[in-house]
């Protein structure tokens, strides 16, 4: 088994009496790990804990061998992690280069020449070499998101935390971003929170499903897909026993749940597995 780079045990954090993260235990390894879950599942809170932005009420974790529960350990952990929050924010009157350079300073890269070289490197890496002198306010949404990724990659962090980085991007931009995340996952640990099961299917060697603060599934994408083996079927009418069902382009219904006797079973997808991994709770919001 690959040695874990990030380990967490029993992480718990409550907000106003609600457990946003509830006894989460994780072991992340090199490569891209997807974190799936509905809104309010606790994904962002878990990411903020692992990125050392929030301190858990209980539990412990290490990042590349550093224990963030101590001041020194937290500083050491911050030196080896990159964090791209859901809404990263930008300084619109900075150029892309100035912004990344500013982040590089805050990452304690103090030698001016090597810092500038690093800023150029990460901007080149995310495909923004041509616009690095442009003010951020003049960049498109996709370009801005790439600036944020470049900022997260400054200093070549061993652990990269990405919170829904493809939200709001058009399909082409999303595809480009997937390439970048896939590249970033080579040789480092990437934890990718997303609503897009396609992202997970295309990028991740592992997937964690969270709901109501708890981990509902932890395995490979194939294993998550396998959760739905024998539980997806077609029918001509809506099936009352289905946990989710929708009319497809052929006019037939595709159902996920417990099939009736003799149902016409079909190949499940990762999304089917995800829906079922969420447990027995209604998933009406994804049903059509």
């Amino acid at each position, binding site marked *: 088994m690959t040695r874990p780079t990030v380990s967490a045990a029993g992480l718990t954090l409550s907000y106003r009496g609600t457990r946003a993260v509830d006894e989460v235990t994780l072991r992340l390894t090199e490569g891209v790990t997807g974190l799936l879950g509905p809104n309010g599942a606790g994904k962002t809170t878990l990411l903020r804990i692992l990125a050392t932005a929030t301190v858990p009420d209980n539990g412990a974790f290490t990042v590349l061998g550093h224990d963030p529960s101590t001041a020194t350990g937290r500083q050491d952990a911050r030196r080896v992690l990159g964090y791209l929050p859901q809404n990263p*924010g*930008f300084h619109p009157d900075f150029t892309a280069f100035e912004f990344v350079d500013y982040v590089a300073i805050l990452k*304690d890269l103090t030698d001016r020449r090597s810092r500038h070289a690093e800023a150029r490197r990460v901007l080149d890496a995310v495909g923004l070499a041509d616009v690095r002198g442009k003010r951020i306010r003049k960049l498109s949404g996709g370009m801005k998101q790439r600036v944020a990724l470049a900022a997260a990659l400054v200093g070549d962090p061993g652990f990269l935390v990405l919170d829904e980085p493809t939200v709001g991007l058009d399909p082409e931009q999303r595809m480009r971003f997937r390439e*970048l995340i896939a590249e970033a996952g080579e040789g480092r640990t990437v934890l990718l929170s997303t609503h897009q099961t396609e992202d997970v299917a295309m990028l991740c060697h592992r997937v964690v499903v969270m709901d109501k603060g708890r981990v509902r599934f932890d395995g490979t994408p194939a294993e998550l897909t396998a959760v739905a083996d024998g539980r997806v079927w077609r029918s001509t009418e809506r099936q009352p026993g289905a946990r989710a069902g929708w009319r497809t382009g052929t006019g037939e219904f595709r159902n996920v749940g417990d099939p009736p006797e003799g149902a016409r079973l079909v190949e499940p997808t990762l999304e089917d597995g995800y829906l079922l991994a969420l447990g027995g709770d209604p998933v009406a919001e994804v049903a059509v």
Partner: protein
Amino acid sequence: MTALTRTPVTAPAPPSARDGLRAVLALARVEARRLLLHPLVLVSLAGYLALLLWPGGEPEDAYPVLQDVDRETQFGQLLLGLAVMIAANLGVLRSHRRGTDGSFAVLVVQPWRRTCAHVLSVLPTVLVGALIVAGQFTAEALKPGAVGHGSVFELVTGPLLILLLAVLGVLLGRLIRSSFVAPLAAVAVIAAAFVFVADSSSPAWLRGLAPVLFDEGARPLPSGLLGRPAGWHALYLLALAVLAAAGAVRASGGRTRAVRATALTALGAVVAAVVLQGTAPSDAVREAREVATRDPAEVQDCVRRGPTTYCAFPEFTPWVDEWARVTDRVRSLAGGPGAEQALTVRQKVNALDGPSGTGEPSPAAPGEVTASTAWGGERELEFAASVARGLVVGHERYAGVFCDARGVLTVWLAIRATRDGEALFEKTGEGYNSPGVIQAPVTAVALRDRELTVVERLLALPRERVGRAVRAHWAELSAAGTTTDRAATLLGVTAPAETAADREWMCA
């Protein structure tokens, strides 16, 4: 492997205190550049420099008194400082305003070190302010007519103001996360400054709390009589800036022993400076003011030029040549006995209330005329009137307006002995809303409309023609009983009839 693929790197060396300092300095460099190039700072700098370099100005500007010039540098710095305060505050709040707090929170350089960087980032702007002050003062000091001495403490007050206000901007940004607070604070600073100034009856220690110690007296004083606690005020501003910086660092999590010690030391210095400001002026300065006001001869340097002796406070002796030029001109216009009459020109001040005082000095002794501590433009006309009055009237006591030949003669001599005398006389009249008044030192020389009309008619005649008549009839024109009608006749013009308004004046 691509550009994004992670390359194996050696483990980073454990951070040291020096690394932290280097990060602070690197961040301070970036923030300093942004602060200097902030539109608000650039606009205020441009406005400030435009005001300083604007062509024109008053004729008096050619004769600066350096102990006033040093203080005059402070007001522009206060305005620049307010702009820097707002810009520094916006710099501190940038991350909050732009939503980068979330991603920046997990970066290595801690918030308190970032605050240190923001505090240090204001120093280049302070340096720019200091360079402007140095340039402004040097330009004034190099003028041929400059007299007096500037104070280093007064000169550093402006840059220290910028430092204090900028650091206050940083502190406010760390205490209150709203970009409205700094502009409100700027208004509060202005209000506080002017409230303290407006109420000059406030105790000295209370006035010392204001960012700028304004002192707008009637005339400049010799530097030794100012007694301003400029050094203690500079210490007060510096210590307050350090205290605010320590507060900002502490508010952003820097709770080290060094920060606490710095804050306590700065607090002690602030208190000490406030107390010591209240002790000014010293007894020695009070005594010197008393002597300079009551018996200036004791501390003045005198020089004799022909029948005139010029006595000035030592710093003002470079102006003796200017006084002599005007005096000689008056004498040459007067001719005869007026040209030979012994006269002492004595510079006088009323320093009893210090630089804020507005009182005039007491009238000169017989045979003396008063010169003030200002020169150029209208001051030259006023001095010429003082000399002419000395030759014609013989004293400076105010007993009413001149309703006779002496008034006509005095004012005509003053105007004709002064460069651009007519224009200045007209301007003086506009300034005092009474066209026949010259604010000569100690007491004004005032005419009624009737005498003023005679003067205007004389000014319309060739100078030499009137001059010949003055010299020919000097004794009669300068006699107390000679009427305005007679003076007009002697000088070749007619006088208008006396009006009811003329008769309302009390005549000397």
